[in-house]
């Protein structure tokens, strides 16, 4: 079943068209990778899924994006509720300059959880699901900024999980991390797909090959090819995709 589905999605920043007629299904409980050279519109595309592009003045959209069957591009969409269901991890880990615990409780408190016990449980379960609990359980009141880069990124994942989203968008989540921290995040992504749907943007083709079920290759704002990851990597239909995945350009 498709949890997200874009139909002829185009997007303009001011007068500059950045996405062209994207048609892309995202299957529930899968990992979908979006690959492509930088500047091709990968971030722009996934930021449509939680309407983060709203923050940029002058963004225009045409086409539809169905989330659970509802078009989320409509102006009357409850954006806050959408973002609660669609979490996001950014390229550079961006924990708040607060304690580890406050980072996790931020979202639940925002959405009305007040009971301390419940909050404590959320802190522990989110950190566990982000495979971080054992490392930080003695430092819950330490500043999040005192964690290592990889830990910070996992903290951001835990923060996103704290409000029980359905989809997790990751925008090049490992591009600022060392190989060991990267491996941990990849492992985590694979675990997460049991319960969540993961859409990840990556620069790194091996990573897409390793973790994703579906892969979309974007080029100059268009979705050049989309399909099962194995097909994209082993028998791409488009010449461009073939050249990109074999590392001959990009």
């Amino acid at each position, binding site marked *: 079943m498709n949890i997200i589905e874009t139909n002829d999605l185009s997007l303009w920043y001011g007068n500059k068209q950045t996405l062209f007629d994207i048609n892309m299904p995202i299957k529930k409980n899968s990992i979908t990778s979006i690959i492509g050279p930088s500047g091709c519109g990968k971030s722009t595309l996934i930021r449509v899924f939680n309407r983060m592009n709203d923050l940029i003045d002058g963004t225009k959209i045409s086409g539809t994006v169905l989330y659970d069957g509802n078009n989320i591009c409509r102006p009357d969409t409850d954006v806050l509720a959408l973002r609660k269901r669609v979490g996001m991890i*950014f390229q550079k880990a961006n924990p708040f*300059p607060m304690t580890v615990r406050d980072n996790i409780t931020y979202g639940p408190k925002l959405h009305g959880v007040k009971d301390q016990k419940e909050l404590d449980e959320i802190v522990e379960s989110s950190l566990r699901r982000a495979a971080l609990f054992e490392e930080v359980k003695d430092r819950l009141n330490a500043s999040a*900024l005192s964690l290592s880069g990889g830990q910070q990124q996992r903290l951001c994942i835990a923060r996103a999980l704290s409000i029980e989203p359905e989809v997790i968008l990751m925008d090049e989540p490992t591009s600022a991390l060392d190989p060991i921290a990267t491996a941990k995040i990849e492992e985590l992504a694979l675990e997460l797909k049991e319960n969540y749907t993961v859409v990840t943007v990556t620069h790194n083709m091996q990573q897409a090959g390793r973790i994703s079920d579906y892969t979309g290759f974007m080029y100059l704002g268009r979705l050049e090819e989309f399909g099962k990851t194995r097909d994209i990597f082993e028998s791409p239909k488009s010449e461009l995709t073939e050249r990109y995945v074999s590392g001959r350009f990009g």
Partner: protein
Amino acid sequence: MTPEDTVSVSGDIPKNADISGIDVCSHPKRFISRIRIEDRAKLILMAAVVFTVAVLFFIIIFISYNSLDAVKEIGIWEFLTGGTWSPGSGAYGASSLIVGTFLVTGGSILFALPVGLGMAIYINDVASPRVRNILKPACELFAGIPSVVYGFIGLAVMVPFLMDVFPAHLNYGTSWLAGSLLLGIMALPIIISVSQDSLEAVPGSYREASMALGATKWETTRKVVLRSAVSGIAAAVILGIGRALGETMAVMMVTGNSALIPEPLWNIFDMVRTLTASIALEMPEAVHGSLHFSALFMLALILMVIVLLVNTVARRMVRRTKIKMGTEKAADVRRRRLFAPLSESHKEMAKTAAVYALVFAPAFMISSLFIGTYGGIAIGALAAAGLPVSKRISRAIGPNRVQSTVYLMLGITVAAVLAVLAVFLGVIAVNGLPAISPEFIFSPPSNSGLSGGIWPAVIGTIELAAGTALISFPLGVCSGIYLSQYAGDTRLIRLARQAIDSLNGTPSIIFGLFGMSLLVIAFGWGYSLVGGCITLSLMVLPTIIKTTEEAVSAVPKDLTEASAAMGASKWHTVSKVLLPASMGGVITGFILSIGRAIGETAPIMFTAAVAFRTTSSFSLLDPIMALPYHLYYLASEVPGSTANQYGTALVLMMIVIVLFAAASVIRYRYRKKTGW
């Protein structure tokens, strides 16, 4: 300062740089003479810094020395705690003055902090770029209006207005309330601009992270941005407090100056008297060498200690919070240990209790003044009960509508403040314009200022500005260059920086007392133009140093490196590359400082300015008339001179506005040209 950097020119040249083709280095003779210039330049720059630092020490020494008699005869403890201040009957207990100073300042911050912060949030989150581009320079302009003009307007507009609003509570209108409101309005610009800068500096990634979790913009601002900007906002508040503590003219004109502690302590309708006002009011009557004279210096010393303490705490705090933003530091760990025994729920409870107390206390204090203690308790309880109600309401209407409500209220606040300022300016313009004519400007005052014009005061102000510029520009710019380019991070330099910062926070009336004790009395110059110029120069020096240092340091590093790589000596690089490139910033800061000097009253009222002066001959050692002092004199001593008061205020303000406009044009020009 290490011996290497005084001598070596080659030290500026990267080791592997190709210098073979550079002509300057192939002439041994010129090479040597260039080193000498280098040395001399550095020495001169350093001397400027040493001079500035020495000023602070001399101020402290002179003020302390002059207060010795009071210390000996009265005793520090008795002076600080004594309840009666009545120099006529020989009673010198300063407690009511100290309390008055804190009350007026505290009240002004209680008012200016929420309003200023709200306006900063509005400018940052809501205002369109175009509105922002109007509001920010407007802030600067309002910061530049002389304190005596604020005092005058306060007296002419605000005090009667307050009397109308609270007829049963205000006998004369002049009151703690009037002082705090006026000081608050004066503190707004700095609070707004510094807080907005720090809101703007919060990384966008924090905002994104919060919005991605489903927070509204307002929730994000409240829960993430404000928390991260806290160090900057604290800096803004403390800067505001430091200024307010040392403010003289505006406060003195509207607080009523009664040396009694309000009864009850929060009775904002009572008159109060501040340290600064006592000094300014009584100094003209105090006989040099008398106990009274010495006691006034003692007040100045107390004021100076308070302001120094406040500013030091501020700097400490800012530094600490800044460190905290980056990583966890010792202070953090200590705090964590302190609160470790508290569970999360206890912490929440403590927080909630604090919030309730914060709502209850002011509501009680204010309402009890009107309807007695029990009524006050009732109103306070009602206000506190409003908290959970408003929480419930906001949950019911949802975050989006909460946001629009909050932004609407912020917008109303901005509009209200702008309206108040517009009234201030409008009243001056409407009443001042008819008073202004060529005769008014070009003729001397007559009939004790009831009629006639302001020509001698205009001339005096121009002379003061010119003299101040002549003295402060070279000193300030040299010091700024030295600190930016030559000073390392040694102990001595840190100390010097601290001294300059302290000098920057020193109340202007302290400079006035220093000028009086050194130039007027010790040097025997009496009131003189040159005395006023020197005093004002010392006052603006730290600002010029700071802006110069900032402007020079803002020049991109590659420019310096390019010049050094071509074999240019350091001084050559500084004088031929850095200075021209940073001239825009330097001159802007300089003009703004002169604008401030022109409007100052407190530093010149004991060193240079007299109410009337008949001869029009020019002598450096003659006393002068000046616009701000003239305005003060007319407003407080010459009833019935209303037209001339407004005329003087308008002329003074126009001069300041012209200077500000010039400064912004220059800044704009240079920014366009250099692009950084």
